């Protein structure tokens, strides 16, 4: 593998790296994680079984992973970016071929200890790969249209595979995160406009590729009350839960909608609804502020980085994290169709937790190495 020239102040000792970690961000993440564990206890009616205890283990493991990733050398991540992307892509193809069917969709590879979801990994891998790609593009290059063809392929190929699984939410997230990275890399705004028009124009084509249940979700989104016991049931019950929570909520463990099973998937996709029912508007507004805090911190960390790889990587992670939150919340409060995305750090699930922590670790890594200067190309000085 080619060697990048990394600036003189490389090679911090481990202790130094730990000092440079953004501990406030870590506190924010831990706060959100703790809220999540509290909600999982409520979801199981006041018990740590079956979800909260395991989620704590995942969260602890995630924290260790995050610190490890953050304290690794940023040059390592730069060098490994394409390899990781290639690995993730290979795994995506792998689930196509031998993935076990879970929830009617092929998404998982069973690794024994954990069920690996390649699409989770791909979210990180794509950001790494795009960051590395644009890191290598000179200022003159960013005006040329052909500069954007390889990254477009890097985005669309895995997105198409994930859409086939089918996992509409993750595919959208991947495409949106990728698009925003192109924007951050310098793609002209009007070109993005053209792409958006093209994407909308391809809507009817995409419709053909959608599964029946995905079409139903989109249709019921537009009129959930039409079929309250059928496909619209989840949205309607979710809105009832939210609305009945009011300003201060029904109290922790007191959510009638969630505890009487009117709410679907209350430990995963709809955990925000349960939170809104039990903690009220003030409670969820606080949680949204925590999320916005993490996202804003991500923007600050990225902007302060002195290397382009770090900037793009940091923003990519931040944007993906933010839209993850946004899609989930917008979905359960009925702003967008149900796309099946969990709420980061709060929803139950080990695979999602680990990939999130991996991403946040990379964001922290960008912060740790903010003063490091990296050459544009391996072996060159410019």
């Amino acid at each position: 593998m080619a060697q990048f020239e990394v600036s003189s102040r490389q090679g911090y000792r481990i202790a130094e790296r730990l000092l440079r970690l953004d501990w406030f961000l870590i506190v924010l993440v831990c706060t959100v994680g703790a809220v999540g564990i509290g909600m999982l206890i409520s979801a199981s009616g006041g018990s740590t079984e079956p979800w909260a205890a395991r989620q704590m283990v995942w969260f602890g493991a995630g924290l260790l992973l995050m610190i490890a990733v953050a304290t690794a050398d940023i040059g390592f991540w730069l060098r490994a970016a394409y390899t990781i992307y290639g690995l993730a892509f290979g795994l995506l193809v792998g689930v196509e071929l031998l993935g076990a069917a879970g929830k009617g969709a092929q998404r998982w590879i069973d690794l024994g200890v954990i069920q690996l979801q390649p699409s989770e990994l791909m979210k990180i891998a794509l950001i790494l790969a795009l960051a590395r790609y644009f890191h290598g593009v000179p200022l003159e290059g960013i005006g040329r249209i052909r500069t954007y063809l390889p990254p477009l392929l890097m985005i669309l190929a895995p997105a198409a595979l994930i859409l086939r699984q089918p996992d509409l939410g993750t595919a959208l997230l991947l495409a949106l995160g990728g698009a925003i990275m192109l924007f951050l890399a310098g793609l002209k705004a009007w070109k993005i406009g053209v792409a958006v028009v093209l994407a909308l124009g391809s809507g009817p084509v995409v419709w053909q590729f959608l599964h029946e249940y995905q079409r139903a979700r989109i249709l019921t989104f537009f009129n959930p009350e039409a079929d309250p016991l059928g496909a619209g049931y989840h949205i309607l019950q979710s809105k009832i839960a939210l609305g009945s929570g009011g300003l201060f909520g029904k109290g922790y463990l007191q959510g009638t909608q969630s505890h009487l099973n009117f709410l679907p998937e209350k430990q995963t996709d709809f955990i925000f609804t349960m939170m809104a029912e039990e903690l009220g508007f003030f409670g969820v507004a606080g949680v949204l502020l925590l999320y916005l805090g993490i996202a804003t911190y991500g923007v600050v960390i990225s902007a302060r980085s002195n290397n382009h790889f770090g900037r793009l990587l940091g923003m990519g992670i931040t944007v993906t994290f933010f839209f993850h939150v946004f899609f989930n919340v917008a979905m359960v409060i009925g702003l967008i169709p149900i796309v099946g995305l969990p709420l980061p750090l709060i929803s139950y699930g080990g695979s999602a937790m680990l990939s999130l922590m991996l991403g946040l670790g990379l964001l922290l890594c960008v912060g740790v190495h903010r003063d490091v200067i990296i050459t544009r190309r391996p072996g060159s000085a410019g």
Partner: protein
Amino acid sequence: MRGETGRANLFTRRAVIVGGAQALLTAGLAGRLYQLQVVESERYQVLADENRINMQLLPPARGRIFDRFGQVLAENRLNYRLVVVPEAALNLERALDEIAALVPIEDHDRDRVLREASRKQRFVPITVRENLNWDEVSQIEVNAPDLPGVMIDVGSRRLYTFGRDTVHIVGYVGAVNESDLELTDDPLLTLPDFRIGKNGAEKVLESSLRGEAGSRQVEVNAYGRVIRELSRRTGRPGDDHVLTVDLGLQQYVSARFGEESGSAVVLDVHSGEILALASVPSYDPNMFTSGISQRQWRELISHPRFPLSNKSIAGQYSPGSTFKMIVALAALESGEVSPYHRFYCNGSLKLGKRRFRCWRRYGHGHVAMVQGLMESCDVYFYEVAKRVGIDRIAAMSERFGFGNKLDIELPGEKPGLVPTREWKLAMIGEPWQGGETLVVGIGQGYLLTTPLQLAVMVARIANGGIAVEPRLLAEAIRDGQPVPRESESFAPMGLSPAHLDIVRKGMNFVVNEPKGTAYRARIEEPALAMAGKTGSVQVRRISEREHRTGVIKNEDRPWEERDHALFVAYAPLERPRYGVAVVVEHGGSGGSVAAPIARDILREVQRRDPSSRARNLEALIRPHETA
């Protein structure tokens, strides 16, 4: 490095834009949440409660019905049901096998349980068997630990201990049908197992017997399972009711008819209290509460003697000679006929071309009023009726309660019929004929009366012309306290005591003079002696030829063609207390068939003397047996 700086600046600008967009989007989410959780919160709060809170009705205990001495006629019995919850039983078929080893289960019940289980949610209890006896209940309870999901559930059912004797008074309860639901919006009626009064006192007293529903609010989950009870409002049990009927007398009267078909009404001539009101043959109302089979039902409705019909209030019969007191009183009041004036009876009276016959082929000779009643001379009453006229007879009839419902507290009462000139013109379209007055004079023709009306007539004669009205309800008992019925005072009918004495003398002679038509049915103990009047009513037309050759004897005719036998009576002779009317359908002659029954009833009622016997209401006030 200029390129690097340019890239960095471009990136920073755009990163700030993205960061701003994130903040805006978050604000958008917060705004939407504000709208849902604060602005529209109330609406969703209501929807959430509708989701989770179910109202369940708690049926009240139905009021019981007692006879005048506190014998229970209708009560609620606990109905032990064997139910199984498939979810808890795990393997339903095995559970049914295990149950069957303890209590018998019919194959069709087994199939039904399995069928219901496949249709319903698994936590919904399914009834395996109803009306378990104590042995079966304890068998199940003892083995309860080995029978997961198998439970004994306690409901309520109506029991009529003396059903066959009292059904025409007490009636019965049955399932609610569509038309019942149209009459009331009481939500109790929508309960699947609810029963309401369908006949008799059960029907008339329905609103009071039913009580008020309690309710409980329960929280249910998305699958309808009850999670907990939120609140409970106890209802009010229905009122108990005490009837004027004396069960012992009622049973005696029913039994006294034997195989005959007919009706008898016994009442207190002063208070109007019905002491017995029998209609035979009868049927067992418990069949209706536990479910009646098609075969049983067909038998009931096709029975030639109509057990379902309450003949004492819905059977309309010509009164025959029992009506002659009315004609006599109308005549005396009109002054057209002196009680001592004698008419000559040679066996028939000719009016125009028609010959009107006396029941005695060769006549009674010279007959005055008392003798006319005693021997029931038809020609005498033809003569009297001819002079008095239909208008006066009809007026007197109506004063005695004929032609109108007496409004006794039972459903299905018929008014009978008192024909008048106006009635005939309106209904048949022809003017009244003189001969028809003669026929009414001996209680036949269009005239129709119910046994209850005949009993009321005899009571009004016996009590000295007081317009007593019959009643069946003594008092209600609400919350353990008797609510007596307001006592009624009855108005005098304005009859002359002297006229009544003449009629009563005639009735006395009917029974107690050797030439009286019911002499053989007299009560020989002087203190208990009765007075009465016979009646025999033709139910077929007797041709002129048969009159000439001799009317075929009742015994030689088929049952449906025999005369109805009637007898009305009161006792004791001095200071009368009890009145009775007996109708034996196709029984033959009143004197030989109905009078002995009436005699035995009057002897029995005087022996029991229910009107004078103390009624211990305290004994009635017992708490309900509750489920």
